[in-house]
């Protein structure tokens, strides 16, 4: 009899089986491959729903666990965590995943790597679900790296394009920096507490009586992992470049799920963060800074996917900020609603991109609203939801975070409000420039037409979720049955509503005439525009660091290396190894008489030695 506990493993392993089957057997059969991958994720979604209901009804779901490794007292158990947090996250990942899988059928049609795409997507689903279900740090780290691998494979999916290959590498390497800290943190915690298991640690950690420095170090190192995966400042640079991947990938991995894994992980280890107020503060400020900075950059971007990418950064900053202020329920609420409307926006952008034969510059679009009505309406819903307009989902989740901040940290609250205004502005800008007015480039935008049903149906589904996901604040109440919003008056809510509306209005004033380029905003902002357009020169700064500082240091080291290390150390060692290798080889010349002599001499030496 299959219990709900068994279903947990079925949810996790169905995509792995699909991925293995596609890679091993059906790479030449695109339809079968897509069917396997979609079947696995839809099955996962249905089972996640069942699990969600079970958890909602208060059933304690325990997945069967096995001992993975028993090392003389150290036991690692392969188990699953099924609680309200993971049940919700499962639903988000499989639900958004399922719609995006279906969408990919249309988006990737005719691509030579169709089957490979679905194989990688299934691998990603497996890895992501593994993070959600992980019951200990080791398990989480393994899947953490696996999502890194599948993200790398999918960003560089069109590997024949050098920019895509580069972006894949960049994402992987930048993530490695964060993951290195994460791994150190995991090892530190394991060494201090003697276990990696989340449930045991949560009970044990505060009672260990560690000094505040050690607590801060552990929490800070773990936070490093989230900084990499959720693309927080200063490791945010990989996410915009990751848009080189196919748009469904951007929607699924780099907007809705994987980048949210960092936030999810932080919520999972809230006990660890709570033990160190300094690190909580650092997390809040990192999030706030990322939110504001990314929103500013988004204002001056022209590529529709990059605008959305910076918007993702900004919203992730919101979530991280909420975690830093201890508002994990609000963070997960925003994570959920954001998954719906950001996936919707990316898929809408993808629909536009196919219609325009892979043109992504919004200032070459225009007038698409009439040609692509479904895409337009759903994109509009996504924009309003992201902007935080009542009664769409984004309004509820964003306001929950703002309300939590209002009393906790005033400077951050102000930053968050500015970000909200900017969000309204850049999203309205993208919407107005791309969809309203006249087609700027007749060749590109003149002959656009609506995408097929397989593309628009996922848009409609996600649009519905973007509208209703926030109602009655069901999600925070599910996560935390005694959830209460901070007390507030209607006036404050109206104020929260007014700020993004002001942003919308400003964008309407600037762009309603359908300008050919961004000259008005450029003149309005002056030199700031260039700064934003070039993303605060962070990439250039890193390049400078890598080329000059690291390069200079490396040159210095190379000089030292040549003299000291290679001349005396490595040269000596590797020379010694090679020399010894040659000696052994000479010894093994093939002459049987010599072999006999060597053996007898060896035996004699051995006997003399033991008999000494």
């Amino acid at each position, binding site marked *: 009899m299959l219990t709900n506990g068994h279903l947990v493993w079925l949810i996790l392993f169905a995509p792995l089986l699909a991925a293995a089957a596609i890679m091993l057997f059906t790479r030449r059969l695109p339809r079968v491959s897509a069917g396997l991958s979609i079947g696995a994720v839809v099955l996962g979604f249905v089972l996640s729903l069942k699990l969600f209901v079970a958890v909602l009804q208060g059933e304690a779901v325990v997945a069967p666990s096995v001992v993975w490794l028993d090392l003389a007292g150290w036991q690692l158990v392969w188990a699953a965590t099924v609680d309200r947090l993971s049940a919700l996250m499962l639903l988000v990942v499989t639900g958004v995943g399922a719609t995006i899988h279906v969408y990919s059928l249309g988006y990737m049609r005719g691509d030579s790597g169709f089957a490979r795409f679905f194989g990688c997507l299934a691998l990603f689903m497996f890895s992501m679900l593994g993070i959600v279900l992980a019951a200990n740090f080791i398990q989480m780290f393994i899947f953490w790296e696996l999502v890194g691998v599948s993200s790398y494979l999918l960003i560089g999916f069109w590997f024949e394009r050098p920019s895509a290959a580069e972006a894949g590498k960049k994402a992987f390497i930048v993530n490695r920096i964060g993951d290195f800290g994460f791994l150190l943190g995991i090892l530190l915690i394991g060494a201090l507490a003697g276990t990696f298991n989340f449930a045991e640690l949560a009970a044990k950690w505060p009672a260990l009586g560690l000094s505040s420095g050690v607590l801060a170090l552990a929490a800070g190192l773990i936070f490093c992992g989230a900084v990499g995966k959720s693309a927080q400042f200063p490791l945010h640079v990989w996410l915009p470049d990751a848009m080189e991947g196919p748009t469904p990938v951007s929607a699924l991995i780099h907007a809705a799920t994987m980048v949210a894994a960092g936030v999810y992980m932080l919520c999972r280890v809230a006990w660890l963060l709570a033990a160190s107020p300094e690190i909580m503060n650092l997390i809040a400020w990192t999030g706030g800074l990322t939110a504001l900075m990314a929103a500013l950059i988004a204002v001056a971007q022209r590529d529709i996917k990059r605008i959305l990418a910076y918007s993702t950064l900004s919203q992730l900053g919101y979530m991280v900020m909420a975690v830093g202020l201890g508002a994990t329920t609000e963070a997960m609420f925003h994570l959920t609603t954001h998954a719906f409307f950001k996936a919707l926006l990316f898929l809408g952008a993808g629909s536009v991109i196919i219609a325009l034969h892979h043109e992504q510059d919004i200032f070459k679009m225009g007038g698409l609203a009439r040609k692509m009505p479904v895409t337009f309406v759903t994109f509009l819903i996504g924009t309003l939801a992201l902007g935080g307009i009542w009664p769409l989902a984004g309004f509820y989740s964003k306001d929950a975070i703002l309300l939590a901040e209002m009393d906790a940290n005033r400077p951050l609250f102000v930053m968050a409000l500015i970000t909200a205004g900017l969000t309204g502005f850049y999203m309205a800008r993208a919407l107005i420039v791309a969809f309203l007015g006249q087609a700027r480039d007749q060749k590109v935008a003149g002959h656009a037409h609506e995408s097929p049903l397989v593309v628009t149906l996922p848009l409609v589904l996600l649009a519905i979720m973007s509208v209703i996901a926030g109602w009655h604040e069901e999600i925070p109440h599910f996560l935390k049955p005694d959830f209460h919003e901070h007390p507030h008056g209607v006036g404050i809510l109206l104020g929260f509503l007014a700020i993004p509306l002001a942003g919308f209005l400003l964008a309407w004033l600037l762009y309603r005439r359908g300008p050919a380029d961004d000259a008005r905003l450029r003149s309005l902002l002056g030199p700031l525009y260039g700064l934003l357009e070039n993303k605060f020169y962070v990439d250039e700064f890193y390049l400078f660091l890598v080329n000059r500082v690291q390069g200079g240091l490396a040159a210095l080291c190379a000089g030292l290396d040549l003299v000291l290390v290679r001349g005396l150390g490595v040269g000596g060692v590797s020379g010694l190894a*090679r020399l010894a290798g040659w000696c052994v080889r000479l*010894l093994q010349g093939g002459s*049987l008489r010599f*072999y006999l002599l060597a053996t007898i001499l060896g035996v004699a030496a051995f006997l003399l030695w033991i*008999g000494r």
Partner: protein
Amino acid sequence: MAFYVLQMEIAVVVLAVLGLLAGAFWPKHTSLIRRGLAEGALVVLVASLFLVFPQHHALFGGAYVLDRFAIVFKQVLLGAAALVLLLADAHEPLRKQGGTEFAALVLLATAGMMLLTSANDFIFLFVALELVTITFYVLNSFLRGESRALEAGLKYLVLGALSAGFMAYGLAYVFGAADSLNFGDIHHALHDDKTAQGIYLFGFALVLLGLGFKLAMVPMQIWAPDVYQGAPTPAAAFLASGSKIAGFVVLLRLVFADVFPPAWEAQPVVLMALAALTLLYGALGGLAQTDVKRLLGYSSIANAGFLLLGIAAGGDFGHAAVIYYLVQYLFAVIAVFAVLTVVANAHDTADRHTLMGLHRRSPLLALALLLAMLSLAGVPPLGGALGKFFVLVATVMRARIDPAFYALAGVAIVGAVIALFYYLRVLRGAWADPAPDAAARITVPWTVRVVLYICMAGMLFLGIWPQPLLALATRCLH
């Protein structure tokens, strides 16, 4: 006497004899018979899994014991033999030669190895060991037309005879000191007689050297590269898997039976030195090699070093680590030889050129080679990584009591790093170098396919979920 205790060995010998007879009566169906023998070995293996064995049964006045440890390794060795028999059927030069003798001899050697796992007496050990060694004299030079194979056979014969001489000589001293050759009696006989202990030490050292020939342990390692290179590939595969496993099983048995000289138990400095030398010899010797089969000879020496390290470290965990290592090593090394069985050229050697561009010529072979080489090099998530890891954990655990083991762990890591270099170089040839123009696609016979799938599954399973085997290994110790 209850001969049903010996039923597995008897079944294998009967199978071998039937194979010989069938080959003589139906010379036209030798291929069928050869495969039948492989399947027969598998049937015996599967049947043995369902048999209920009497616990701690002894035969021949305590010379033969049957315990869980022996049964598990009898099964492992049978499995190895079945895989090697499948390879032998796919090996082109051996097919040309025809006949069923090669397969029958493999089974006879297997019977010898299975007897070894139960040996509890030095004479019994010696006889079973010689059964294995003498069979290998024939197997190694089975390709009579190839001068390399003859050379390999001759070298194995001469050096093997030398080591058997050492062992027999050592046995005389052991008997003289302990007045018995049974493991159980020796431990008591030596109890507190200092003179006898001195004589016993000398005799035991010679026995260890004789056994060291099977293990490819310094100073008895010198034959390995030449013989691995020259012997028919399936014979080399069996040498690397079955013969080595049997040797280490005997060594473990000597440890369990407490017949190690008392002086070595407290201070395993002799074993430590042998482990370090063996490790470094294998790692360094492989650096300059271009022939893959010869390289595997050195690899086999380096792996023997790792296994000796586990035995020197000792403790329950150390011994469990050795058992784990042996099983995972079996999968990796047979996978490599399976690839070589198909790609080796007409002279049955495998220089660098034979592997060039393998990923274009046969993706399956290239993948299997990749997994096997990474497993041998110790890269997760493959069995080899955990094998090395467990041995190192055991070493470090021991080092808490005896700090000299830290140095040994360092040596092991250095050896593993050096070996990584030559394993990866093989992979570069197979994956990065372009295929020679003349090279056509390789068709892989189904027998080799089966072997490769089994080995890949084994490597991955042991690398991903180690606990079942580790738990079994721990149970074997008690």
